[in-house]
């Protein structure tokens, strides 16, 4: 049953200060709406429980990508189109460029925002494994001030997160420390375009003399939250990519994930594909050492 617009309030205070003040005055009462690519879908389906919405679309304080010497700060209100078109992101954080390109069509890329994708908290979101791999930090703001927290651990359960009712994500920070790494992303869906992932991977790795020096692996759609495979990473460090290691990596990955059956896939298929994606990344990493 479609929602009746008469039942909803929507305000646009126009500044970040005014928005966080309103969130603080009536905690939990106001649902922030940026580009609406998730919120308006819920609204159309009559499934939006919030009745009061506060627009953060086009808030100046959430715009822009700031390039600093040691990090880049992506405004939470940056759209996928802005991410896709940014040179420094394409050069230094290509996993995020790929994820932005995979997310929706052009119209949704023009409206969907990175901050929105984080708080929508879908385990299938393509950009979130990239943020895990790059060890993103979140700048979270409220009238009480700003705090800076690692993105790893932000999602505490399915659609649950470390964000108080009066807080907003202001920006996402990525350290500029991945120049010597292989950046690898792959999405497995029903088809190439416009399909939500069955499983997706974002991974980084570096070799020294054919030995894995550092590695970060994150998967989407295999658990209630986007998942960093820290146990697999620990097991891989200091090793050479050989068939036995691939077998062990698959096994360790299978133990780390909690895939489910749903409309897009089955737990069994996801587990098999997750193992394949990890193994494929490691093969690419090995081959990158051969050509270097």
């Amino acid at each position, binding site marked *: 049953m479609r929602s009746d*617009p008469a039942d*909803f309030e929507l305000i*646009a205070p126009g500044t970040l200060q005014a928005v966080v003040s309103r969130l603080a005055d009536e905690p939990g009462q106001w649902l922030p709406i940026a580009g609406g690519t998730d919120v*308006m879908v819920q*609204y159309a389906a009559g499934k939006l429980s919030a009745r009061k919405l506060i627009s953060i679309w086009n808030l100046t304080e959430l715009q822009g990508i700031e390039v600093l010497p040691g990090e880049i700060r992506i405004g939470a209100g940056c759209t996928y189109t802005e991410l896709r078109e940014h040179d420094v992101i394409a050069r230094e954080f290509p996993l995020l460029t790929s994820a932005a390109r995979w997310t929706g069509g*052009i*119209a949704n890329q023009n*409206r969907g925002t990175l901050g929105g994708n984080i708080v929508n908290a879908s385990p299938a979101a393509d950009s979130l494994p990239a943020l895990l791999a790059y060890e993103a930090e979140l700048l979270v703001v409220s009238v009480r001030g700003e705090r800076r927290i690692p993105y790893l651990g932000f999602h505490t359960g399915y659609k649950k997160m470390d964000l108080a009712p009066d807080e907003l994500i202001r920006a996402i920070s990525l350290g500029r420390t991945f120049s010597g790494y292989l950046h690898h992303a792959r999405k497995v869906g029903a088809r190439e375009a416009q399909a939500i992932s069955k499983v997706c991977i974002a991974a980084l790795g570096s070799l020294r003399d054919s030995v894995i020096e550092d590695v970060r692996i994150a998967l989407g759609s295999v658990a209630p939250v986007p998942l960093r495979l820290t146990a697999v990473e620990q097991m891989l460090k200091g090793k050479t990519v050989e068939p036995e290691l691939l077998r062990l990596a698959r096994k360790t990955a299978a133990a780390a994930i909690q895939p489910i059956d749903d409309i897009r896939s089955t737990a069994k298929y996801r587990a098999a594909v997750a193992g394949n994606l990890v193994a494929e990344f490691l093969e690419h990493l090995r081959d990158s050492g051969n050509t270097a």
Partner: protein
Amino acid sequence: MTNTSENRGKCEFALTVNGKAETVRVYPMERLLDVLRQELGLTGTKEGCGEGECGSCSVLMNGKLINSCLVPVLQATGTNLTTIEGLAEGPQLSALQAAFLECGGAQCGICTPGMILASCHLLDKKPKPTLDDIREGLSGNLCRCTGYMQIFDAVMEAARRSPA
């Protein structure tokens, strides 16, 4: 004490649609799609899925392609909107419209306005697109009649005819 009732009920919103200043009095959560069709009588913009998957309701907002079913009208306040009705000049079709007609790029017509606006947005960014550019530029617009090939042909043809 904050006043939480300021936006309860209908409000006036000013928009520029196809170059014309308009004011509508609606609820702020009214979908832009419904405002265009019902308040302004611009029924060229179609509703397909109503959830941002099909692109039938695509329009340009400040030159950017958006799905009007996913935009509450409040967020369109003060913007410049282009709908399918804004492309022709009198009886003179735009190059894209003419190419869609000639190449058989329209059959039932429900997806066509969105397809043409997505094509406008693409050609604005890439005046000489490759076939891959066209496929990507239109990937958020679904057609259940043409099989897409005539639509791709139409965009290619419009790009070929445009100067430079």
